[in-house]
């Protein structure tokens, strides 16, 4: 069983390492990920959002709806923890 798991893990790793041969090099300024939308975020962040920190302006301004959904995720996590675990003194269930 353990041998089987090791074989699966190494096969996954080998497939991923094979796929990295097509990835851009480390620190390549012309990689596709840094050419599509991020130059616009960097260039326009002061004149459009008045925020020098590009991470904050993308997080809260350009993609604010995304952040709202994700705040809902942690809100849900807190609600789930309270509902699952919170027990009061006179509570006889469990």
């Amino acid at each position, binding site marked *: 069983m353990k041998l089987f798991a090791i074989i699966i893990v190494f096969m996954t790793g080998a497939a991923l390492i094979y796929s990295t041969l097509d990835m851009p090099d480390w620190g390549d300024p012309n990689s596709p990920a840094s050419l599509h939308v991020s130059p616009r975020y960097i260039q326009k962040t002061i004149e459009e959002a008045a*925020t020098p*920190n590009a*991470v904050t302006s993308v997080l*809260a301004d350009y993609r*604010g709806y995304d952040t709202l959904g994700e*705040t809902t995720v942690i809100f849900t996590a807190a*609600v789930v*923890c*309270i509902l699952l675990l919170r027990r009061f003194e006179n509570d006889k269930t469990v």
Partner: protein
Amino acid sequence: MIRLYDDLIIQVVCRIMIPLIQFFALYVIAHGHYSPGGGFQGGCILAASFILMVIAYDLDWMKKRFSEIKNTFMVALGIFIYALIGLICILLGAEYLNYGILHKILPADPIKVRALGTLGIEIGVGITVMAVMVSIFLNLTTYGRHEKGEV
């Protein structure tokens, strides 16, 4: 009063450090426009100060200052602030979360007001993250009973 298993050095150091940690957390939230930081990071630091209170003193000492009702209320308050800012934008006639329209009610020009809208939602996110971290920590460590454990 010094109880069994209390360490005087830790308590005195924490009494000095906790306000500084909270002050730094507010700085991280409010200064997120110009330096690394923002609502998530500042909220986590603020939660760490409350967790430090529980570790250094005990649960009752912390609950006297930040009760469970306030905590659960603030879990919902932060996300309510966030959604409310979006709704105000709709009521003023723009899209949801388009802060540029807030210049009708805030004293700033349409570009600068976007920074203020960003600050508003960072505060909302910070409140929610702080309350959620404290709530999860207390519920996990006390098995949901919120009592002082035996040392």
